[in-house]
């Protein structure tokens, strides 16, 4: 059986035996996802690469951090990547982060480049699905979700950054997440993939 045929969870089990080939397969499978997430958050290529390296080596050294019974590997890895990158920008200073945030969010195109055939070819079905769902959200709801998720801001901080009442931000986040969940469920045929 080829390593490419193994599921993520099976590859992770092999890391307990320091199987370098299994590790390489996991890296090949997810390095772009981890790097893209980190880059979106830290906005610095070099730092995003450093974080990607750190995250993968952590998996190599401590495969027991992932517990298969708690959910699928990809979700766990996304969560680890996002949290580590947000920690990094927090360490680098909240003030700088808030100043950067508004301009960045206003200038950024809606998530996903569905019109770019090259990128489309590189995106997995799941990425396309999520980007489609995000594009379906009203711009202000998507912006609130992205400020929370990619910049690690609380609702109160988002309200300050956008100059909007706290209640408005709370509503945007709640409605945005509900709509996103609903769309993802519909696309996945009734339930979020696990």
């Amino acid at each position, binding site marked *: 059986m080829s390593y490419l045929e193994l599921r993520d969870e*099976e590859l992770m089990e092999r890391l307990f035996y320091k199987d*370098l080939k299994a590790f390489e397969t996991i*890296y090949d499978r997810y*390095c772009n996802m981890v790097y*893209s997430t980190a880059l979106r958050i830290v906005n610095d290529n070099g730092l995003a690469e450093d974080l990607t390296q750190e995250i993968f*080596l952590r998996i190599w050294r401590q495969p027991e951090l992932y517990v298969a019974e708690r959910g699928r590997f990809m979700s766990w890895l996304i969560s680890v990547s996002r949290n580590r990158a947000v920690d990094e920008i927090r360490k680098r200073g909240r003030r700088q982060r808030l100043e950067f945030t508004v301009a960045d969010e206003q200038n950024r195109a809606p998530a996903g480049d569905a019109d770019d055939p090259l990128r489309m070819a590189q995106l997995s079905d799941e990425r396309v699905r999520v980007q489609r769902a995000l594009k379906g959200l009203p711009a202000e709801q998507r912006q609130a979700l992205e400020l929370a998720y990619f910049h690690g801001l*609380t609702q109160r901080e988002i309200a300050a950054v956008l100059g909007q009442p706290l209640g408005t931000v*709370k509503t945007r*986040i709640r409605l945005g997440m509900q709509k*996103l969940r609903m769309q993802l469920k519909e696309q996945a045929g009734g339930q979020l993939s696990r």
Partner: protein
Amino acid sequence: MECSEARELIDAYALGALDKGEAKALLKHLESCLSCWQELKEAEEARNLLALGAPAAFPGPALKTRVLQEAASAKVKPKPFSALGKALPRATAVAGLAVSLAAVFSLAFFFKSEVDDLNAENDVLQQEVTSASAVLQEQQQMLTLLAEPDLQRTVMTSGTAQPEATGMYFYSKSREWGAISCNKLDRLSPGQTYRVWVVTPTGWVSAGDFRSWRGIGQYTIDFRKLDLRAAPTAIIVTLEPDSRGEVLVARLSQ
């Protein structure tokens, strides 16, 4: 907090966007509300997918080389033969004093104690090598088992004897093999061993003993060789011979 209030907060909590006070109140509610907890799990799943909304970007090819090289160098290395490295310079230094007759006696005493130390360390090393070989042998069997398409996995919960221990139980019905893989096991004292028990409604059957190596322990169970009268309900690892309680337990669903 009522469920309706909790539902207002769950999405923001999943995004990590609640203030500490609100998060604390929500957590208190979640402790006793299964339906809100399930709602949170769904919100967390959607939250994780948000990362895929980031524009696709690709790290440079050099990163892969760096990561793999670092991983390869971080592989478990054999323990250096520290006993020799320690003994040799000291022995050389003491030999310099041997010009005086009086020093001959201390030198003789020194060498005797060094030889005793080396013997003791040799025993420990011998034990390490034996344990490492056993673990390696089990790992080879385990890799065969892990490739089985019908492999089932059960997380082992740590018992009272070693609360830090973690483990996984694997079982392949087609092969009739089970195997446990344990981590963070305590170092065994001389004479001690870990024992694997297969528990059935009619009693406990010993499946064999294993020793750990640097906290890792592995053991494969060939069920065809066990005289079981009923289907197993649990797999238990104990510390023997002092039976200080269970080290790890896998409860099996029927």
